[in-house]
């Protein structure tokens, strides 16, 4: 029997070795797959143990903060948004069982504190708890309120940025939502009519209509081929790309200056201008303005879309032979643009032709008050010369003073420059109303 007993022991050793092997399978070899498994909530729950940094407006008011519940090892933090639906966009939300969106998503590394494991370990050993950093944004609650009120419950979007720095002061998208309600109402919000979870400013694409004439005008002036006083043919209708194109109300202007053509938003003029400039030039200026690429904004990439010509969901080169340049120049054709993009256009003209990167974050501060990061305004491209920009500014001022944009004129002697647009939406029933602009004209402070 002894021989068998010894063999039995060998079998037991083998069985136990199997146990160790399988344990190491889960602890080492397949650990990362297990951690990535959708049913594994440990990662998210670990996140809840760390108080998330706050998101602040430019004046310091709190837009998002973490409140704790429970004691000691069971202490958990969750997000609360004091200003409710005022900043649903672009703040977004961050909830363990709903995921993240908006700024609360893209700022995750800063808000959860240092990702560096070593310093986290050091902090834990020395008794400090790991905390997230606070982020001060460029957003202005007062201005945001004004903008929201102006939209008055209609669906739409407003983006206001500082031309000189690219800092975004206002980003409104309505219908919006109150991030505090996301945990209970997520499914409802996701499927609601009006898409409240969609940030129209960065994700909504619409035909720009006549506002795109600003881009055409920029190309016209900066290329040197036209001046504000150049005489162009404003007759209507004209044959553009083989089909007749009319002005608004079929008005025939005859020969007019380029400036007047902008003031009165004469379609046939701009169509012809673009055709004469050619696809290469138009493409060049569109690229300089940032079309065709995701805007360089500090916001989640999957919630920011590029603006441009879309053919069946994919971007088309403006120089492509299939593009009807004339109609593109007046904001039709297959152009789909975001409010952010068009605001950038206005801001670029206001900033003497220099396009700045849109910026939402002003600085990152740790819990002790030390500034951890301070992103500086950065130029994305020099789109046009300062002279052409100045000329275009004058032309756009006339739009507000005399032309279709008089509704945008401000009191108190502040000169505003801008351009209106009315895009026909495919269904034909409602039209999309646009306005881009900036002021004061002499030293523009907001676009």
């Amino acid at each position, binding site marked *: *029997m*002894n*021989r*068998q*007993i*010894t063999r*039995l*022991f060998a079998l*037991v*050793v083998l*069985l*136990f070795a*199997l*146990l*160790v092997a*399988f*344990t*190491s*399978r*889960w*602890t*080492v070899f*397949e*650990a*990362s797959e*297990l*951690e990535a*498994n959708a*049913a*594994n*909530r*440990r990662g998210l*729950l*670990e996140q*809840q143990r760390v108080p998330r940094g706050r998101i602040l407006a430019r004046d310091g008011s709190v837009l998002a903060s973490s409140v704790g*519940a*429970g004691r*000691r*090892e*069971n202490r*958990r933090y969750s997000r609360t948004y004091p200003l409710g639906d005022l900043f649903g966009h672009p703040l977004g939300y961050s909830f363990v069982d709903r995921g993240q969106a908006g700024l609360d998503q893209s700022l995750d590394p800063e808000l959860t504190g240092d990702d560096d494991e070593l310093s986290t370990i050091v902090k834990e050993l020395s008794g400090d708890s790991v905390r997230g950093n606070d982020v001060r944004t460029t957003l202005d609650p007062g201005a945001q309120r004004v903008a929201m009120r102006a939209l008055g419950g209609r669906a739409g979007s407003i983006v206001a940025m500082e031309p000189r720095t690219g800092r975004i002061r206002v980003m409104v998208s309505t219908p919006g939502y109150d991030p505090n309600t996301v945990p209970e109402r997520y499914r409802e919000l996701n499927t609601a009519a009006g898409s409240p979870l969609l940030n129209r400013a960065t994700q909504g694409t619409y035909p720009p209509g006549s506002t795109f004439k600003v881009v055409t005008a920029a190309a016209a002036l900066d290329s040197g081929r036209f001046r504000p006083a150049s005489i162009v043919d404003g007759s209507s209708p004209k044959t553009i790309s083989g089909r007749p194109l009319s002005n608004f109300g079929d008005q025939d202007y005859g020969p007019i200056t380029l400036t007047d053509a902008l003031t009165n938003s004469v379609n046939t003029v701009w169509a012809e201008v673009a055709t004469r400039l050619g696809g290469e030039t138009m493409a060049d200026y569109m690229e300089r303005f940032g079309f065709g690429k995701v805007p360089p904004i500090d916001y989640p990439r999957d919630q920011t879309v590029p603006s441009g010509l879309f053919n069946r969901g994919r971007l088309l080169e403006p120089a492509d032979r299939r593009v009807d340049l004339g109609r593109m120049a007046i904001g039709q054709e297959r152009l789909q643009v975001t409010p952010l993009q068009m605001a950038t256009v206005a801001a670029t003209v206001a900033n003497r032709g220099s396009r700045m990167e849109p910026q939402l974050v002003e600085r990152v501060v740790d819990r002790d008050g030390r500034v951890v990061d301070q992103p500086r305004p950065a130029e994305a491209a020099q789109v046009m010369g300062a002279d052409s920009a100045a000329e275009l500014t004058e032309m756009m001022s006339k739009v507000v003073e005399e032309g279709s944009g008089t509704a945008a004129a401000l009191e108190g002697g502040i000169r505003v420059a801008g351009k209106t647009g009315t895009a026909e939406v495919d269904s034909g029933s409602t039209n999309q109303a646009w306005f881009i602009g900036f002021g004061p004209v002499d030293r523009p402070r907001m676009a």
Partner: protein
Amino acid sequence: MSSPRARELFGLLPVSLLVTAGFTAVLLTRTEQVSNVTLVYGGFFLVCCLFAHLFIRARLAEADPYLFPLVALLAAFGLVMIYRIDADLAREQAQWFVIGLVIFCATVLFLRDIRTLERYRYTIVVAGLVLLVMPRVPGIGEPVNGAYLGVRVGPVSFQPAEFAKLAVIVFLASYLNETRDVLVRGRFGRLSLKHLGPLLLIWGLAMFMLVFIRDLGSSLMFFGGFLALLYVATGRLAFVVIGTALFFGGAAFFASTVGHVQDRIAIWQDPFARGVVDDEGYQIAQGLFAQADGGLFGQGLGQALLELPGGSTILPLAQSDLIYALIVNELGLFGATAVLLIYLLIVARGLKTALIASDGFSKLLATGLTAVLALQVFVIVGGVTKLIPLTGVTLPFISYGGSSIVANFMLLALLLIVSDRARREPGRGGLVA
């Protein structure tokens, strides 16, 4: 330092240190201060162990010196883990620990000669069978997770299967010792029902447990222990092969007809399937996640995530079924391997006792008891690591559970009794057929 009892006493020192250190560690993560609790638990534990040690010194002076400290180590570790989960459970566990030690002493006291057991073997096995059936008796039985394991009589609830396993092993050791001559030499065609009968009875018992009590784990454990004894007694591998085939054949048959077994196997194969992972597969899936979270070195004692916001647990039955997952989570692969090594050492000492025992019954008894302990560890750890389907078997001495602790202390008592006699009158210890 050569006397076994001196070595045993020496071996108890690290145990008490571990207990104190363990409780301190857990306490620190909770309240950030060391309180009297640590010292009370630690001291209390040490006193109990000392008492048992003195008892062994008095009655079983020559018994194996390492078995008791190793078991005490596991029990201490288990106490710390359970304290970490819930202080009340820990207090209960400590109470059971004391009762276990009392039963341990009682067993040693009343069983002067192990051969007494042989005389009453039929009584014992019948009692064991009755115990096994008890959970199915309406009124006192209570199913847990679909398996009929527990019995509640008034305020007391216990798991009879834990004690039944001892009874069956005692019976088998005695029976096989008697009939081994026939079994060894007899050719299969000539073996009459009289000899094969009890064997088939055991097989039937295992199937019965599968179907009637719906306990896949115990079924595996019992049958495995039986096969081990059969092999050691007869030396014939053929028996093992046939037995294994019979078991899996029977299990496969019943799996297709008994829903519960089928479920267990389905969950085992794919616990992450949609719908399963939140329901029946939740336990094993969370256990695996906990182990992945542990990694090589674990999160640290008391540091693992146990609670969901809202108070419910992320590791169901962490104190019993999934305690191994918690061990891996907090102490990592290295810690878990260390625990497995301790079990392996106990198995080694148990089988060594079997080797040096002089008479057949003692040999087989020691083998059977050790084998069933090893298999119990294998079944539960295998279940938690998805080597085999997860079942409700306890991790001996570590899991929370009064019946388990008491029954396993009885097992230890039996082993030490055999060991004491074996070391006094050693058998030839060589290669005896």
